[in-house]
């Protein structure tokens, strides 16, 4: 292998290698917490890794959990990479899931029609939901961070209102605020019979490729990246930056909505209040996007690692008497360290060509000086 290919490979692996170094450091810190509880760190970590990736069953469970994280991560990445720092993935996912479940059950006509309409309208719905914050930004200069955050809360309660008062599943004791189950014929099939993993994961993989392609190989991707870097440059180049803003935010809403749709079609077959919120899918997805610098391939692997941390954490709770809190602590440590750019600095020193001394901030930073920074004011 010549050095060129090597460099290409290491370039390709860069966004992925960082989490591994960070995880190592995190595990060292986590070990302290475990020792306090009187358990052996090695044992706990073994259980954790096994519970996340150690057998076909565990791996598939982790991938199932990773699916919505990957998708919302991609949704976050496309708007963040064009410098629109919205945190509305959760609300959009709720919209997607809610609409899909309701339309998929209540729409008149044959099942295939229900399914088609459910998918189309729920994606439109979540796109419009995101478009609303774009509109608020455009017309009222309202900080995206605020409007999307507020819409997350509002969306959850509004969906809850409709489920509770209009679409409630009253077939059982009606204690859960949830809609009725969609028909078996329109559910996403499982990838492996008898396991949870469904073809939604396949869709997520496809989406990773599509988003990568969109970002790196299309005019729209080029335009939006440039608008993320310098909006004046775009205006001057003839790019309609407003179109980009509306386009990117809507697309990001559609993608996050798709995460909800897939959860309904592949996992729960209905919309249940609080499921997406309690699992923090969209937030973890956003974290994955930030950690991997909006690189879709990086998001894919980071999401799987983050999902593995959750499923592995649950495995600790099952297999030992270590309380759930300890696995929460370990999870917190790991993500904390993953976020750090320690590894990057490592890599920089060893690389031949250093990057400019004071680039406003690496792409992982939430706030990049000399850009909009609208998240603050």
């Amino acid at each position, binding site marked *: 292998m010549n050095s060129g290919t090597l460099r290409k490979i290491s370039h390709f692996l860069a966004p992925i290698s960082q989490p591994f170094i960070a995880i190592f450091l995190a595990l060292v810190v986590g070990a302290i917490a475990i020792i306090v509880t009187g358990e052996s760190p090695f044992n706990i970590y073994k259980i954790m890794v096994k*519970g996340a990736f150690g057998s076909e*069953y*565990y791996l598939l*469970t982790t991938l199932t*959990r990773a699916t919505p994280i990957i998708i919302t991560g991609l949704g976050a990445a496309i708007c963040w990479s064009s410098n629109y720092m919205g945190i509305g993935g959760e609300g959009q996912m709720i919209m997607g899931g809610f609409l899909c479940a309701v339309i998929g059950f209540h729409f008149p006509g044959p099942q295939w029609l229900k399914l088609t309409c459910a998918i189309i309208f729920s994606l439109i719905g979540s796109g419009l939901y995101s478009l609303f914050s774009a509109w608020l930004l455009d017309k009222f200069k309202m900080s995206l961070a605020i409007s999307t955050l507020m819409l997350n809360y509002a969306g959850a309660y509004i969906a809850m209102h409709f489920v*509770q*008062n209009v679409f*409630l599943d*009253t077939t*059982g*004791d*009606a*204690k*859960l*605020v949830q809609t009725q189950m969609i028909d078996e014929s329109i559910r996403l099939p499982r990838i492996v019979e*008898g396991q*949870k993993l469904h073809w939604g994961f396949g869709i997520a993989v496809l989406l990773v490729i599509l988003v990568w392609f969109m970002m790196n190989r299309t005019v729209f991707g080029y335009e939006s990246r440039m608008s993320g870097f310098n909006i004046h440059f775009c205006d001057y180049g003839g790019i309609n930056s407003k179109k980009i803003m509306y386009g990117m935010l809507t697309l990001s809403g559609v993608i996050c909505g798709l995460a909800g749709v897939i959860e309904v079609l592949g*996992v*729960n077959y209905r919309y*249940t209040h*609080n*499921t997406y919120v*309690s*699992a*923090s899918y969209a937030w973890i997805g956003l974290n994955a996007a930030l950690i991997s610098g909006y690189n879709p391939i990086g998001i894919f692997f980071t999401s799987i690692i983050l999902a593995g941390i*959750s*499923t592995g*954490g*649950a*495995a600790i*709770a*099952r*297999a030992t008497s270590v*309380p*759930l809190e300890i*696995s*929460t602590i370990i999870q917190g440590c790991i993500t904390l360290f993953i976020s750090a750019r320690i590894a990057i600095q490592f890599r920089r020193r060893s690389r031949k060509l250093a990057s400019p001394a004071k680039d406003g901030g690496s792409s992982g930073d939430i706030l990049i000086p000399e850009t909009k920074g609208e998240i603050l004011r």
Partner: protein
Amino acid sequence: AADDVKKVAIILDPVGVNPFLTQVVDKFAEVKAAGTYPMDYSVIECADDTAWAENIRASVEEGYDLILVVGWQGADPLNEVATQFPDKAQYVIIDTVCDNPNVKSYIFKPQEAAYLIGIVAAMVSADAGKPEGPFGGVHANPGQGSFEWRYGYMEGIKSINPKVTNDDFIFNYTKSYTDAPTAKELALQQAAQGCVFINAASAVADFGTFEAALEKGFYTSGQDFDRTSPDNPNIITTQVKYTGIVAGMIIDEFFATGIQPGVVSLGLKEGVVGATYITDDGVNPRNTAVLTDAIVAKAREAADAIISGKLVIEVPLEEEYMKQ
């Protein structure tokens, strides 16, 4: 010998906040310590809603003999697993019905306990000169899940004073099981609207309501297990739900005959729900000045009617009831 030890998985929400769950876990600890049965158990707390499905499925994978799911979030996943692996384990769910031939469901009739609290609330308010309320309630969330408590409470009050309508009730929600400061402020505001009695049902956030009661002098009730305290005479009773008893029943059944699928509904009659000082004597002395003998007698009367089947309390849908 180790092969004979039966492994039980108890799958539930994080235990700490919810006394309803603590009782189940404590019962298992007690039985294990007693050594009556060759049994080992794991308490599997679910960090989020998705973890329920994962943990239930994983428990089958990990070879547990009895899978005990405590909480309605587990109904869907348990249904699926029980259908897919009917013979790999035995399945029990508590607090909701899982419509599956391989699952045994235990449900409660907490409305029966709440009905008794309603009677207490109505009479205490009447004694304080406010027979028509308003009557307060600080609960965690709106919705059918906890409506059984509210329904029983409202019906109990109405049974004492038929003039009371839905408009005479003030319910507020903390949206959290732990947000005691919010619970306290909500209770203070209800008291300012004239509530003499405020029904607390928001898990550990109830301590906020209790503090408010002590400060403002209104009366309140605890939930799940006896919350009366010598430090706080204003907690005059508790709507109890002895889930530990159910845990004992399940263990006995499992080792005696194996789990027999079906639905069992538990109420006052089975001694699983009740009201402190009405259906039991309580751990602390009763605040007799407020919870007078007359009130206790009246409530016991209702309890007897319920136990004998003369009085049946069926919970309707919340929206329909509240529209009346």
